[in-house]
């Protein structure tokens, strides 16, 4: 059964028709602030219900609750604060209760009611959300670079941002209709930011064995240099699905959402978001959403013990390797053989081979996938 959205209602804050026309015509007269592309993504996610039940950027009470108790003030689990940061001079003259326009590249994106203006302690934010204040952590460093004040309030979307891969991005209402049309009752979601290797395929198929459908859900958006480009990830998955998955069991759709590298907290966040898309199960990887060695390898699994009321079932599937003795992909739970037989599939090694224009061995990556990636002149972000 497709689960209800988090909080019971799929949020829709997209203005349409006459109301949108009127507000757009008034937009030039309202005060406005410029927001970054990352905040535009947050606005889109709020408006389309990806972040249901949020209807805007967090108020202070919710912010504090999320920071310390990983719950909103209505007791719903929520682990990553979704906040809008501003400089004091940007909002000078503005007060609580005012409407403002959020602009990106001069274009009005959304109208927001300022319901609260408050300060925040970025170091404390980092300590709670990232469990470290080390500025070398990418999420912490981003936090430290954010502005000094936060504004809380509801938003309404005026204009969608065009994305080069917009035809590959589906929103929660669309996947919910799609799953119903496909008559899927159990849907496993798989989060990724990578091209698929045999380990990913193994994990997905292990989950798919007992579910009706698989949602492969790559994050689309900002990537760090050295990552695979979004279009490469899609093409690689298309090749894998075409050659190695039965028909009508997989949906490949992009998810426009920011990545925080917040490890365990982000694993919960990713699960909640997938519930909003209609998934019943969510694959949580070892060191899910982690970076470096800031989190223990299984911390992202253990945190789920604190949330009996998530409304989506986490699937903890162990990392896969190729076992020469078993003659196939396996994991430590099902393979009795020693390390001398096991070949770990290293993303770094694969990347190096691809960079050198080499086809990786078949036990690491399907040849059709590797050939597809190598057809791109430059598969990486710079």
């Amino acid at each position, binding site marked *: 059964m497709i*689960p209800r959205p988090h909080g019971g209602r799929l949020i829709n804050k997209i203005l349409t028709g006459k109301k949108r026309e009127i507000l757009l015509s008034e937009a030039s007269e309202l005060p406005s602030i410029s927001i970054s592309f990352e905040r535009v993504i947050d606005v889109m996610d709020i408006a389309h*219900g990806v972040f249901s039940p949020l209807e805007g950027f967090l108020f202070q009470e919710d912010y*504090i609750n999320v920071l*310390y108790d990983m719950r909103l003030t209505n007791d719903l689990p929520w682990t990553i604060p979704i906040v809008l940061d501003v400089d004091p001079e940007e909002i000078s003259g503005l007060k609580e209760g005012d409407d403002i326009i959020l602009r990106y590249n001069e274009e009005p994106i959304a109208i927001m009611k300022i319901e609260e203006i408050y300060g925040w*302690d970025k170091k404390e934010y980092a300590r709670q959300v990232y469990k470290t204040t080390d500025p070398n952590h990418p999420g912490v460093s981003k936090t430290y670079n954010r502005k000094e004040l936060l504004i809380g309030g509801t938003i309404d979307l005026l204009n969608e941002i065009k994305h080069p891969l917009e035809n590959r991005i589906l929103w929660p209402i669309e996947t*919910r209709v799609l799953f119903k049309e*496909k008559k899927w009752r159990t849907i496993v979601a798989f989060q990724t930011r990578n091209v698929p290797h045999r380990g990913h395929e193994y994990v997905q198929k292990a989950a798919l064995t007992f579910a009706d459908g698989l949602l492969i859900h790559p994050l689309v958006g900002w990537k760090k240099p050295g990552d695979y480009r979004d279009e490469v990830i899609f093409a690689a998955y298309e090749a894998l699905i075409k050659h190695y998955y039965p028909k009508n069991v997989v949906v490949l759709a992009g998810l426009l959402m920011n990545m925080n590298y917040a490890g365990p907290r982000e694993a919960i966040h990713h699960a909640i978001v997938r519930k909003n898309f209609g998934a019943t199960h969510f694959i949580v990887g070892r060191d899910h959403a982690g970076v470096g060695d800031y989190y223990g390898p299984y911390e992202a699994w253990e945190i789920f013990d604190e949330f009996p009321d998530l409304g989506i079932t986490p699937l903890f599937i162990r990392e896969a390797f190729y076992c020469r003795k078993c003659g196939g992909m396996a994991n430590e739970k099902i393979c009795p053989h020693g390390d001398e037989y096991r070949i770990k599939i290293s993303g770094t090694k694969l990347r190096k081979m691809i960079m050198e224009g080499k086809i990786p061995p078949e036990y690491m990556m399907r040849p059709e996938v590797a050939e597809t990636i190598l057809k791109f002149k430059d598969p990486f972000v710079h």
Partner: protein
Amino acid sequence: MGLTDKEKRVKYTTVSIPLTLYNRIKKLIEGTGFTSVSQYVTYVLREVVASHEESKYEEPFTEEDKQKIIEKLKKLGYI
């Protein structure tokens, strides 16, 4: 001086349960990860409340919305 973020955090309230039940839970949670009866009760209640809430939901789209979305999904090759 104002309150720190930590001091502004969530408040608690008291709910009464029979002493017999309290003692039963206290015994039950010995040697588990639960450190208090309150923690256990909160955990169990959240689980139960969420499952009761789950049954109260209807999809947020009308038939007209649904047809529009299906058209889009067909165009994109999903259906």
